[in-house]
């Protein structure tokens, strides 16, 4: 079955407003997703350092990442299996990331 990556973008400072109880609920919703039958993998990406390397005038240059301005960061990803792209999107719509104000980018793993 084809595999899709759900790239989770979000603003981590949004979590600060949650109470301990709500934090636990959020964690449980995400963890439940790691145990879904269609989930193949889930990985967190470290926030720091998050550098982006560009070539400027033929010389490579590292910057502090694209996130210093926008607040939204790519926090991690889930890999899921679905029959089609539409099916993957349908599943992704249920992901708690959306409930907590983040975004989910759905991309097919090419050739899978």
């Amino acid at each position: 079955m084809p595999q899709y990556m759900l790239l989770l973008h979000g603003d981590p400072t949004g979590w600060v407003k949650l109470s301990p109880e709500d934090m636990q609920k959020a964690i449980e919703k995400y963890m439940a997703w790691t145990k879904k039958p269609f989930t193949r993998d889930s990985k967190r990406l470290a926030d720091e350092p998050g550098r982006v390397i560009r070539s400027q005038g033929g010389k490579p240059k590292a910057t502090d990442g694209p996130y210093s301005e926008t607040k939204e960061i790519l926090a991690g990803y889930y890999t899921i299996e679905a029959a089609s792209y539409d099916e993957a999107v349908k599943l992704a719509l249920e992901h708690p990331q959306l409930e907590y104000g983040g975004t989910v980018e759905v991309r097919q793993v090419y050739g899978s």
Partner: protein
Amino acid sequence: MTAAGETGSLLEHLFRHQAGRMVAHLTRLLGPAHIDLAEETVQEAMLRALQIWPYEGAPENAGAWLFRVAHNAAIDAVRRNRLLSDKTDAIVHELSRSASAPEDNPDLEEQLRDDELRMIFMCCHPDISQESSVALSLKTVGGFSVREIARAFLAEDAAIAQRLVRAKSQIRERRLTLDMPPGAELKERLASVLDVIYFMFNEGYTAHAGQDLIRRDLCFEALRLGCLVAASSIASPVVHALVALMAFQESRLAARVNESGDLILFEDQDHGLWNRHLISLGFHHFDRSMAGDEVSEYHVQAAIAATYARAPDAHSVDWQMILALYDQFLAINPSPVVALNRAVVVGKVHGPKQALAAIAPLENNSKLRNYYLLPAVRGHLLLELERHSEAAASFSAALERPCSEPERRFLRRRLEACGRATILGQD
């Protein structure tokens, strides 16, 4: 300790409870002037979990993980924080020692309970107002957020935040400590701790708009704190009386409101919904409250609640016994609210006419001027006497006084019952 299991769920309220006990513990290590720092480091630990666990799952012992991470965050903060300059090394040493304590160490468990207890006793210092004491206890020992406390008290977030700031600055200014007060002062403080716990409980128990679970959480937190005090070496019979009272009342929580949040009278409650575990907890503490000679208000109220709990069904309540207890209650606390409650029981024992006579002296009491239950009780008695138009006038009067939405709906239903009877020519 915490099996994340197949469903990915953690121990219920783990974060809230762990937050409370970690704040209490870290406050002891950092000093009461630094409650804020304790709270920040605990939050940092939880945020760390929030970043990692959604992808990697929870560690085997989630509580211990949070405990360790919070300690490490505290160590970092102390090293950075100049406020603690001369004590930094000693505090870091203590924190490191505490952080490396083996998991599920019984001594540590006991230490944490002791820290929570000391924290409640500090929160209930007489220099802090009762309202602030409740808010501060919920925030620091209970692990509730400002917004949750505000929701439970139907207050603005800003008002609660303000209350907490004021209480914390009182702790700093008056240099309050986590030491237990000595001798006679301890007894006084214990009394104010119990009052604060019961205040918290009542806030949660009072019916309010919607089915906000936060209010039920408030009741459970009050009971948890009561049990914490009852399990400590300073427990006295009156502590057990309060715990018994709360456990009995709480056992009926699920039965007194239906799915749409409407109030259900005791007579109409489904006893199958009474929580048997809480009832037996109630009797356990009720028995222990009998030691000694002291008869407090909590004792009498617990005895009343126990009489209800003993009834096999709504029609077999020992109202005679309850009336005798209310007489005793009124003697200890001659308040018009107690007198009104007693009048309801007079109605059960001697009939509605006698009950009406019992509430007559309360009609002009200024303390009951805005109390909707006075006209509501009158209406109920008049309805029993089939004096429908007078009953309707009483329920209308009750509706003009402040009451919650479920109570309002209840009164409207009663009012409609009067109207139907009038139309049928029963008046």
